[in-house]
């Protein structure tokens, strides 16, 4: 069992090393089928190596297709939305037709849609996502600016949610149908079903408004240097409520996945062997069952990380967290078309990349998929 597992990364490293060559080859649809079986370097491994490369290319191709769809959809979906950004600005505000026309030309909305689409495509490939109507800044610069706070929030929440979910999940599985299992699983599912917005507001009302223990919004008290000691503590204070909200709402999925996959492992014979060796229940669980049950869980975790970032939209809106989610939320009511397109493409790209990573990691981690 161990030997193939260890030897595998070697040959896999081979095609992996050849990957840069295979990568560009992937852009040419004819190449991949020939390349895999055409270069059987290792007599032992050809089907595996070939199938891995094929697998990789297939996944890459899928990701690429999704990405193209996202790019096209990003442009047309938001343009199909009702509402004219310029008219929206002109409403409730004294503006002459000349001013409205000037604004339209500044936004590039006076050009034909097909020209706008071409500009957008060229822009995407040159890394230029256009200029936000509201902020009057390049969208790519805005996204970079707001990515930091979002990553801080989501990474903190993700680490806690994953840790908590996996830990409670494996305990629940091990003591399936016990009181602990029932309490832990049902509590997590209750939080999972609670609307994020509502939970956030309730926490805000209790801990922010009434008890006044924690700040009611933002990331840092204006005027504090974020890198000073007081500043860091201030950021932590601002982090507590949004992180609790995010964790409470998502940790159930990790708990459930971990619980299910561990329960599956529990009927395996090797656990009986382990017990026969005289290991304690805790040792059987920690050293044998959990590591094996972790494999499928890890891929699920990867797939959810992308979703977590997108899920920050609501939490950021409730807690006025100056991140990407808030940026998107406000862009919708703009409607700030370039900013919406930009965040949509970036969010989608993150999810696509994460799913791709999950596919690849899954293949490396799980021997069953590898052999299949």
């Amino acid at each position, binding site marked *: 069992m161990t030997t193939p597992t260890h030897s595998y990364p070697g040959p896999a490293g081979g095609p992996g090393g050849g990957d840069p060559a295979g990568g560009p080859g992937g852009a040419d649809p004819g190449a991949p089928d020939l390349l895999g079986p055409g270069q059987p370097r290792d007599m032992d491994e050809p089907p595996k190596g070939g199938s891995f490369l094929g697998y990789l290319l297939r996944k890459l191709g899928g990701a690429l297709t999704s990405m193209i769809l996202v790019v096209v959809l990003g442009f047309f979906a938001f343009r199909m939305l*009702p*509402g*004219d950004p310029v*008219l*929206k600005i*002109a409403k*409730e505000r004294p*503006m002459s*037709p*000349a*001013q*409205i*026309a*000037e604004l339209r030309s*500044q936004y590039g909305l006076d050009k034909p849609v097909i020209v706008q689409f071409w500009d957008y495509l060229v822009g995407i490939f040159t890394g230029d996502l256009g200029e936000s109507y*509201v*902020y*009057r800044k390049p969208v790519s610069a805005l996204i970079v600016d*707001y990515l930091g706070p979002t990553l801080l929030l989501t990474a903190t929440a993700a680490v806690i949610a994953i840790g*908590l979910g996996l830990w*409670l999940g494996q*305990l629940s599985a091990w003591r399936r149908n*016990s*009181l602990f299992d029932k*309490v832990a699983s049902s*509590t997590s599912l209750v939080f999972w079903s609670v609307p994020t917005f509502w939970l956030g507001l309730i926490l*805000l*009302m209790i*801990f*922010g*408004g009434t*008890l*006044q*223990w924690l*700040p*009611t*919004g*933002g*990331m840092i008290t*204006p005027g*504090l240097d974020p890198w000073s*000691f007081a500043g860091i*503590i*201030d950021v*932590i*204070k601002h982090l507590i409520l949004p992180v*609790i909200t995010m964790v*409470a709402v998502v940790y159930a999925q990790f708990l459930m996945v971990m619980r299910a996959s561990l329960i599956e492992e529990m009927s395996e014979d090797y656990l009986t062997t382990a017990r026969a060796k005289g290991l*304690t229940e*805790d*040792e059987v669980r920690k050293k044998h069952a959990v590591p094996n049950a972790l494999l499928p869980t890890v891929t699920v975790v990867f797939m959810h990380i992308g979703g977590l970032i997108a899920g920050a939209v609501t939490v950021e*809106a409730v*807690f*006025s967290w*100056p991140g990407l989610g*808030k*940026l998107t*939320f*406000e862009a919708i009511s703009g*409607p700030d078309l370039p900013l919406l397109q930009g965040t949509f493409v970036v969010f989608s790209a993150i999810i696509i990349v994460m799913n791709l990573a999950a596919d690849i990691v899954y293949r490396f981690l799980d021997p069953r998929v590898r052999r299949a």
Partner: protein
Amino acid sequence: MFVRHKLRRRLGKYLAGVAAMALVTGVATAPAQAETTEAADDSKVLRIATDGFIDSFNPFTSFYLLPTNSFRYMYENLVNNSAEDAQVTEGLATEWDTDSAGKVWTYKMRPDMKWSDDEPLTSKDVAWTYNQMMEKDELSVANGGLVENFDKVETPDDQTVVITLKKPQSNNPGQEIPVVPEHVWSKIDKPGVFKNDKKSVGSGPFQLESYEANKSVTLKANPNFWRGAPKIDEIQYRYYTNSDAQVQAIRSGEVDFITGLTPEQFKAIEGADNVETNVGNGRRFQGISINPGVADAKNNEFGTGNKALKDKKVRQAIRAGIDVDTLRKQVMQDYAQPATSFIPSVYEKWALPADNPVVSGFDVDKAKKLLDEAGWKEGSDGIREKDGKKLELRFLTDSDATVEQNTAKFLEPWMKDIGIKLKNEASDVDTVSERTTKGDYDMYYSGWSINPDPDYQLGINTCDSRPDADGNGGTSQDGYCNKEFDKLYKAQHTELDEKKRVDLVHQALAQHYEDTPSVTLWYPNQLEAYRSDRFTGFTKQPTDGGIIANQVGYWGYSSVEPAKADDASGQGGGMGAGGWIGIAVAAIVVIGGGGFLLNRRKKSEDRE
């Protein structure tokens, strides 16, 4: 093995404990520190919650509410609008005069004024600002409409500005245009894209100190302000995306002023400690726009409006069928002023008086009679018919706006009473705006913010404000067109005798009322709250029962002063170590602790 296992678990517990302690103590000591750094000048910093968009602080290009509100505090205009009744009062100019035709306006400026950087402020700055807007398209984005009628601007001396107009106008042309310092702005390469987002130089009571997108905006008091330096040091806008969060923030004392509350939020906060509330009579109106048969400038009709509404009597019947007073009390919970026409009652002089003979009330019999006269006869199901067609109307509303949805709920049975079938078409606000632009509506819920001079709003009710044949350039309020109204508009536009002008404006409003292209429901109150333990002395506009935020002018915050020190001692915001330990305990119990305890109990079972 067992011992090692136990030891490991103990070690784990120990480490977790240390981490928890570190968190608790670290967090517990922090507020004390944060407070000392802030407390130094905190009592003179007015903190205002906002969620406003900011593109820049460039007064030539920005049109969002927060920047334009800030410009009123940053840049004095040639003439301002008073706190008492929002009518024209002295600004940079102390007196002004116009020739008999209203074509040449001459302003005398106050001598020896200074910009916030101590440079002298003269008529040259005024002329330079106006000329930039007249000459450069990219600088006319925000306020270009205000100088469209300017022919030339001259400065015979440092204290005199002469504006020559293309066509006479009675509305003082020196209003609402922020005057910027030439010595700063003439050195900027591309003034059209200049952000102006730190250390602004201006003439108003506060100057922009710094701006951090979606975090805060800081304005600093200007000691050179000609009315005298404000009594507070800074205004700090803090970002709260969510209005419920703003309410919590004023309860906890993290901000000192909030505005734009809903009646529910307002009632929830009324009893709060150290919070004072203000029901401000606002300068907005809300109403129901009725499609009178929208058409373009060449009278070609467009859209899908019900033909029945082209008949004035049907529109009048709709007005008579609405019990506005009940609606105002139920839907607005009385947080709105009774309305006549589209000029709100805070502009007492211009608003159509309630005792004007044209103003009529809720009258079901009259509504039925009007519909009878229009030829709509009651059918078997109570819905009126004419030529085999039933009188069915669509009412377009914003599905997110509670007020609009509730209005629709009241309107449906009321309209049924007079024989009109009303269908509420709730949609998102962007769809509503698009459909109304295309004329794809019968009735919709509309609202406008009105400036002190009625000229602009009257102007967008003239035939000329309708879109051109391509559907572009339309700014019309309701798609209304009546040559009589247009005549009255033109007459008041150039009437220099104020008494006569007021009369003309009333006539125009009465004509509009009579024609009923819209039913003005009410003038909503602006609901506001501030921390009375920290600040006093907010000035309202109008001073009697008016608003603090969103004024036309810089009165609201300029007169604010810190409350007495003994009042301020009880303020919240920080918390002791006890509270922090409480939080840590609560968090542990809620998320993991309960499970942990249960887990412990079960573990002993495992060991058997």
